[in-house]
């Protein structure tokens, strides 16, 4: 399969997944209801489709695309197939921001948790951009990212520890498990703005990611403005990860797995895995959210739980097949 065909296939899959996600849900609708929804958006079926299911599906697609793109950019930058949006500590810092907002009792203010999480992500992102300018070796950057992640995790634990109310911990945990439930069109916009900025930065850095395949020294003398391209890749990936964690909590595996799923047809070139990874991430998350909604459980499954449950075995399979092709 060529890269072009793969992109078309992913786009078709995404469209189909979104259509199914809008048509299928907890509330059973009859054919006539769908017709009503189409002709009269203000009707009850119209409300269900256009103000509940559609923004939710769109949000899942947006978050999935952001995570897939962020993962692909970081795997390229760090030249490491195990990198994911969490590797630089941005996700954990966003979680800390959310935890703080909840512990301080700001949960009642609409958008406060999300804003606080985004601030956490941006602070960590700025720190990582500064570190990436100073330390070029991917291994160093990964170790520093792990430290940031661990430290943000420790601060989050401290928040729970000092929080007088046990409810706080439960609330934060529930938020962290990830969800795109009850999202409206305005939420979509506030997530789309930082995500679009991050996507633009990552797209601009694509040439640099490809050049880094040959190592830092060759890239440094290649004539590309590597310092700026690296900063754009790190900053863009952090913005994408931060925007998605702020909007939907911590959702694992999509950012890790999406680039691996698309390399089979897009090739290994890190610059050329970006767009397919974004599309694959979107498809994965729309399907995962659909599963979270339709699997009949007493409490709706959290999105992060679904992606981990399905993602981990799937990823093991992908890794196994990749390892087999390396051996032969």
């Amino acid at each position, binding site marked *: 399969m060529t890269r072009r065909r793969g992109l078309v296939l992913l786009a078709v899959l995404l469209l189909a997944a979104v259509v199914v996600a809008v048509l299928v849900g907890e509330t059973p609708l009859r054919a006539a209801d769908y017709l009503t929804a189409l002709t009269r958006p203000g009707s009850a079926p119209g409300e269900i489709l256009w103000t509940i299911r559609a923004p939710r599906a769109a949000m899942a697609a947006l978050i999935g695309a952001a995570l897939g793109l962020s993962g692909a950019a970081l795997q*390229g930058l760090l*030249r490491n197939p195990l990198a994911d949006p969490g590797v630089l500590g941005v996700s954990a810092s966003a979680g800390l921001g959310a935890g703080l907002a909840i512990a301080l009792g700001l949960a009642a203010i609409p958008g406060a948790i999300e804003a606080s999480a985004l601030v956490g992500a941006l602070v960590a992102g700025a720190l990582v951009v500064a570190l990436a300018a100073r330390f070029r070796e991917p291994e160093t950057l990964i170790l520093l990212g792990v430290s940031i992640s661990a430290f943000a995790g420790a601060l989050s634990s401290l928040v729970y520890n000092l929080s007088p109310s046990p409810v706080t911990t439960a609330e934060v945990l529930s938020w962290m498990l990830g969800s795109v439930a009850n999202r409206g069109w305005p939420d979509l916009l506030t997530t789309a703005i930082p995500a679009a900025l991050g996507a633009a930065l990552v797209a601009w850095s694509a*040439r640099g990611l*490809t*050049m*880094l*395949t*040959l*190592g830092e*020294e*060759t890239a*440094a*003398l*290649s*004539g*590309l*403005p*590597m310092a700026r391209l690296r900063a754009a890749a790190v900053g863009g990936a952090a913005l994408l990860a931060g925007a998605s964690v702020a909007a939907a909590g911590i959702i694992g595996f999509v950012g890790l797995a999406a680039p691996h799923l698309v390399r089979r047809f897009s*090739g*290994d*070139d*890190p610059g050329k895995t970006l767009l397919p990874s974004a599309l694959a991430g979107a498809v994965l998350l729309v399907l995962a959210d659909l599963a979270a909604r339709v699997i009949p459980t007493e409490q709706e499954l959290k999105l992060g739980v679904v992606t981990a449950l399905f993602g981990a075995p799937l990823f093991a399979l992908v890794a196994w097949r990749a390892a087999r092709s390396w051996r032969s």
Partner: protein
Amino acid sequence: MSAAWSLEGLVVRHGGRLALDGAGFTVSAGQMVGVLGPNGSGKTTLLRGGLGLVRREAGAAALSGRPVESIPATERARLVGYLPQERRVSWNLGSLDIVALGAPDLPPAVARDIAADCLHRVGLGGFEERGVLEMSGGERARVLLARLLATRAPLLVADEPAAGLDPDAQLLTLELLRAEAARGAAVVITLHDLSLAARFCDRLVVLSQGRVAADGPPAEALSPGILHSVFGLDGALVEAGGETVLAARRAVQRPAPGR
């Protein structure tokens, strides 16, 4: 005319160790210079220090008469092509794609034409679509050499371009670089094979413990005295079958350790 690359009194420290202690040399257009020396004598550091890839404590490095650090990235890439010793490639790109990365400033179609030509020159015509990680180490080394050629820079710097190659590929590599010098490029290589160095280079720079021990035509730079004191060898360059080769054995009396 100013030298293509001129390095003067470079001092570079790795941790506490003095890796370069005032080394330097110059290379002009059309010349092929070999930088020699035992392991740890500072060959790679000299190249990297001279290209602005490591921080210098002292010394001056100039490309075409201009200080290396003052030249913008795009322009610097037009002045110098660099082949590092490390041949690691992170992702399995096709060999043509890898070679085309040597000319990122050109439109993709033009870069690919140049890349195809360079692949052909290193003997890998027909391997354009082959993934570099599916190739043997020797083939990958030739792909990376082709990328260096694709830069078409007036100064080509290659760190150990012949290391790990079979004899045929070693000769092909040095012949190709020699041809670049004949076309007017300044070429600088490091290598451990003193016979090949003497045969292919116009001038040899011999490093010992971060300093230049000798700089001159092969016969002069690899004098029996230098062979003994720098390399710990007893012997000399001799003519055999129309080629210069090294006839030497490990010195019985080892030269006094310098540090």
